[in-house]
């Protein structure tokens, strides 16, 4: 009989002792495949539910931060901002806007030049959803979405500013994957309570806001978290990016000149 017979090959494989190299390899492969399939199915089927939970958490955090910042729940109105011009994009709906998806889609996002990309984002959406509370014609409080690279994850948060566009009313992170007990402490209310009253830029308009190593000096600095240098630096970088010319800079300029109205 000529040529390999598949049946005899299989029978020879089965007859091998269980500690032989081919059987060991086959067993390892089978276990790895089985485990991978089970884990993948669990992750994929449960992701929509987890997203809903995260979304609820995000909204609860905005409400909590705003009520801390202004003492009570004033009504905030959501607006879309064209980040390049800094104007409100009134034709877009902020409720259905998905910032994460928009930042990935090449049609709704732009690449950030390497030199300006201090927050390590790569691309950013052309628009952003912001929340503003007006008192009469003047903005009294605004909440800006901010995110950027931390130590081992992307930090997602909201920065609340007073009407002058320079005084921090609150900073709150709602999603991150930093080291528990170290970088993950940016989620703690105690650390976030250090932010209200801090100023972003000095008199000349230069951004000075910084998370420092050790204790903070002056109105622009905030105490860093011990043992989480790269998370601290990540927070500094993402704030400076989003407040700079590639972030909300143009919008804040128009806000200060009184152009942004309800």
């Amino acid at each position, binding site marked *: 009989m000529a040529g390999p017979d598949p049946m005899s090959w299989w029978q020879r494989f089965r007859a091998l002792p*269980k*500690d032989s190299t081919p*059987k*060991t390899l086959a*067993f*390892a492969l089978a*276990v*790895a495949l089985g*485990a991978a399939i*089970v*884990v993948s199915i*669990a*992750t994929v089927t*449960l992701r929509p*539910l*987890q997203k809903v*939970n995260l979304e*609820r*958490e995000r909204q609860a955090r905005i409400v909590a931060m705003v009520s801390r910042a202004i003492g009570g729940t004033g009504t905030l109105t959501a607006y879309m901002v064209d980040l390049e011009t800094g104007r409100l994009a009134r034709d877009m709906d902020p409720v259905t806007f998905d910032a994460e998806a928009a930042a990935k889609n090449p049609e709704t996002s732009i690449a950030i030049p390497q030199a300006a990309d201090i927050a390590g984002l790569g691309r950013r959406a052309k628009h952003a959803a912001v929340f503003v509370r007006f008192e009469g014609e003047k903005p009294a409080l605004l909440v800006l979405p901010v995110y950027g690279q931390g130590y081992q994850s992307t930090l997602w948060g909201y920065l609340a500013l007073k009407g002058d566009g320079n005084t921090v009313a609150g900073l709150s992170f709602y999603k991150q994957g930093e080291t*528990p007990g170290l970088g993950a402490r940016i989620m703690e209310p105690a650390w976030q309570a250090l932010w209200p009253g801090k100023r972003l830029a000095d008199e000349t308009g230069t951004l000075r806001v910084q998370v420092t190593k050790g204790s903070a000096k002056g109105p622009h600095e905030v105490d860093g978290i011990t043992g989480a240098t790269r998370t601290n630096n990540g927070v500094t970088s993402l704030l400076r990016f989003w407040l700079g010319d590639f972030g909300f800079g143009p919008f804040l300029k128009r806000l200060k000149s009184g152009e942004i109205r309800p």
Partner: protein
Amino acid sequence: MKRTLGTLTHPVIGDNPITVQILGICSALAVTTSLATALVMCAALTAVLTVSCGLISTLRHQMPQSIRLIVQITIIASLVIVVDEILKAYAFEISKRLSVFVGLIITNCIVLGRAEAFAMRNPVGASLLDGLGNGIGYSLILIVIGTIRELLGAGTLLGYSVLATVAEGGWFTPLKLMLLAPSAFFLLGFLVWAVRSWRRDQVEQPEFRIRRPAAGGRP
């Protein structure tokens, strides 16, 4: 039938993974500040332990000796990831409070210990019962410690006020120490002592004896 039942009930008190084998202490300290987190942790560990013992016992005749530990860990780790994902989807608040400790079930000595000591040598049914029994034994201790710590540390049980605290206008001053890790050590120590006073057979022989000084003493 009696032996089957023994496989299930023996690890609950007679060979309890925490008070007798002194395993899984890290998570027993970390998640018992409130009863709710302790209960969820118990459910997660019992599920992982039972299913992993069953699976490993099913595969025990095919499992090559040279890679058996890594295969056991792969199975346990996959189950832990699945449980963690389920908690994140259906019990989000609790899973945030448990943080890394669900993931750390992978390194819990009870799970690998039962796989290696029991499931590798026994049929599937007995292994399932052994996993379940050890899970119940672990849960029993966590529930006892979690109840004491939440009750004395915050005056509540499962979030409901039981002892009216001073802050709410009552008489009870919460013992803040109960919410810190050392209190769990104390409670666990007392518990081990109590169980061993009742079940003298669990008392271990001392590994060495202190020699009495010969000179100056009475004969």
